[in-house]
């Protein structure tokens, strides 16, 4: 099958067995790969009502049809599982070098099921598959574990690991790879931990069958050349995503003090220039990437000497602004601690910010935390609490379930400033004066994550008071951006350089032999968007419109200061956005896809499950 490795690897950790079966043609034909395979395999294989931490949940890993081919950004990998954070659909994406390696080992998907009776890691060397003991790695940091496995197996192996947070089933535990890249969101690291699976080590030597090898090579060369010719190509790399920090403050959308406000006066001390000037060592790229956005940094102080990839923008926003850590060295140190513990730095900074506000308001008291304090701006408090969370000690055990669950325990109004959607913490854009961005967060299928639709420039360009056209644009982006996660390509070449989308059907044809337009490809993405919605509808009791609202803070509290002072988004505005969004999607007023919509997008098999949920 052109473009595909042609096989699925299934590993049962309970029985310590594995099987290799051919990739079904209809799966490739209808769901492309990556996120598409994850969503379809989750629907088919994880029994309804499965416990996210039970043996019946599965970690599904998939590269895409363009992964490992010579073209810009062809090294992304999708992880999926029933999410312990949302209780429904969960996926997360990582770059680095492991995705092509899985393809070269011969696999388009790896399905990991069951629970091992002791800590193990999965060893894959082409078709030599072993479940190996990992007792010596258990308890070690994610970065340290990767180092140890590389020392043991050799640099040619690509490694994905979890840290102590995953082992202890923290609901925002991530999967770490390539010394600082993470599949961060929706708690799939915790699912790995629940399976006693510490790591996956992969090495592959096979080739990928291409429909037209010469055309693929030529098209790939043209794509690289086109990237290099883009205006601003040379300016992109030095700061990477950290370069956006000042701008987000300029538009009043920088999460600050647990999203109390949208402007951090000290943003110049944590921006891309501060990173370059003070801590950056070099750039770091994923497989086949011409625009290395990764920044490898070093911070040396009397107490520590650390290397860390980052901090990138999201980490700067959630550690820097959201907990008011006001210098880039301390942000990098906190970033390193989260990486080693195996905590998603977006949720990590959000949860710590929430706890700091609880402390400020007297909801968490000093006596609850052994007489110490939990203050905005304190990196010591940040690091201490992160460790308590990762090891589920004391109040850290409550916070380890994320802000939604912690607010249920703390009460006293804390649910109003628990900044999440669907149980996943909000990422780096305060959206009270950005309706399209707000709607993007509200309706993202994995909770409050920006990567499904990043629409804040659309808000600025088309008017931040206007609602017209916002839902339409969010839907367009929710098809474009996740399509990259189905093909398992990096989208930053398009987003950051303005690389034309027309290139992708051309290379897709050269690789797979299939002649599809960009709109044809988007139709696959719409299918998967409806499938992930259906999955959460199936799994979460009462799931629907009420799960698409933002936290009360954004609907009730005006932003106190900065460029967006006085702005908030009342519930009637939120409802107007949702009404329009559902209508355009072909969903009912409760956010449930209609039978006609399911049929239209090729999901007729879902209808019998969804029909009883419609009122």
């Amino acid at each position, binding site marked *: 099958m052109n473009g595909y490795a042609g096989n699925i690897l299934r590993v049962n950790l309970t029985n310590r067995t594995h099987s290799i079966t051919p990739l079904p043609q209809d799966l490739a034909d209808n769901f492309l790969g990556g996120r598409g395979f994850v969503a379809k395999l989750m629907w088919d294989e994880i029994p309804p009502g499965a416990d996210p931490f039970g043996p019946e949940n599965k970690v599904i890993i998939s590269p895409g049809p363009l992964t490992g081919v010579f073209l810009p950004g062809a090294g992304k990998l999708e992880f999926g599982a029933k999410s312990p954070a949302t209780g429904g659909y969960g996926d997360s994406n990582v770059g680095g070098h492991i995705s092509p390696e899985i393809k070269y080992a011969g696999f388009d998907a790896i399905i990991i099921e069951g629970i091992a009776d002791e800590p193990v890691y999965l060893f894959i060397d082409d078709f030599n598959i072993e479940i190996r003991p990992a007792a010596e790695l258990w308890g070690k940091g994610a970065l340290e574990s990767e180092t140890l496995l590389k020392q043991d197996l050799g640099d040619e192996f690509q490694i994905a690991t979890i840290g102590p947070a995953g082992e202890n089933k923290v609901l925002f535990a991530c999967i770490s790879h390539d010394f600082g890249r993470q599949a961060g969101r929706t708690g799939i690291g915790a699912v790995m931990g629940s399976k006693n699976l510490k790591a996956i080590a992969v090495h592959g030597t096979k080739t990928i069958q291409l429909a037209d090898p010469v055309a693929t090579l030529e098209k790939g060369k043209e794509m690289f050349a086109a990237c290099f010719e*883009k*205006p*601003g190509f040379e*300016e*992109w790399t030095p700061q*990477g*995503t950290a*370069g*956006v920090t*000042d*701008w*987000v403050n*300029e*538009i009043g959308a920088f999460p600050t003090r647990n999203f109390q406000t949208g402007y951090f006066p000290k943003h110049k001390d944590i921006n891309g220039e501060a990173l370059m000037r003070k801590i950056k060592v070099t750039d770091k790229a994923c497989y086949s990437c011409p625009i290395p*956005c990764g920044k490898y940094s070093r911070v040396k102080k009397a107490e520590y000497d650390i290397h860390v990839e980052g901090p*990138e*923008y*999201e*980490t700067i*926003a959630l550690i820097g602004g959201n907990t008011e850590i006001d210098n880039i060295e301390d942000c990098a140190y906190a970033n390193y601690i989260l990486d080693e513990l195996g905590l998603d730095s977006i949720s990590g900074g959000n949860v710590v910010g929430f706890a700091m506000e609880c402390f400020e308001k007297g909801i968490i008291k000093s006596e609850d935390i052994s007489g110490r304090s939990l203050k905005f701006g304190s990196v010591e408090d940040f690091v201490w609490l992160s460790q308590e969370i990762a090891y589920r000690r004391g109040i850290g055990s409550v916070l380890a379930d994320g802000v939604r669950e912690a607010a249920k325990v703390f009460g006293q109004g804390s649910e109003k400033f628990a900044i999440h959607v669907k149980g996943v913490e909000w990422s*780096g*854009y305060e959206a009270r004066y950005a309706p399209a961005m707000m709607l993007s967060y509200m309706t993202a299928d994995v909770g409050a994550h*920006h*990567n499904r639709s*990043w629409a804040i*420039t659309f808000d*600025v*360009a088309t008017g931040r008071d206007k609602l017209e056209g916002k839902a339409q644009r969010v839907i367009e982006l929710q098809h474009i951006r996740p399509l990259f996660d189905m093909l398992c390509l990096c989208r*930053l070449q*398009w*987003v*950051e*350089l*303005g690389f034309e989308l027309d290139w992708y059907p051309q290379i897709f044809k050269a690789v797979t032999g299939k002649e599809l337009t960009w709109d044809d490809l988007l139709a696959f993405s719409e299918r998967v968007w409806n499938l992930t919605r259906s999955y959460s509808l199936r799994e979460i009791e009462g799931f629907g419109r009420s799960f698409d609202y933002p936290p009360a803070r954004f609907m009730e509290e005006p932003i106190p200061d900065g460029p967006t002072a006085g702005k908030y988004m009342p519930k009637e505005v939120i409802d107007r956005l949702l009404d329009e969004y559902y209508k355009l999607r072909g969903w009912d007023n409760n956010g449930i896809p209609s039978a006609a919509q399911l049929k239209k997008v090729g999901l007729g098999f879902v209808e019998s499950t969804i029909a009883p949920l419609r009122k």
Partner: protein
Amino acid sequence: MEPIKVSVRGHVIKYFPGEQERFEFVSEGPISILDMLKALSVDPLLIMMVNVNGVKQPKTAMLQPGDDVLLFSPPAGG
């Protein structure tokens, strides 16, 4: 009058006239970057950074005929 040579980087290209990533802007004389953007009906907040003749400049900086201007979109932040 020699035109100002403008290049736009990244996703905000779609908000520029004709969605062009390179174009020339003719001004009768010196003009600020802010005023040039205004004349193009582009909200200056869409531009994260400006380089003029290879040097970073604030949006209030004045442009001269013949200048090379590079306008940067904000990166999508990870």
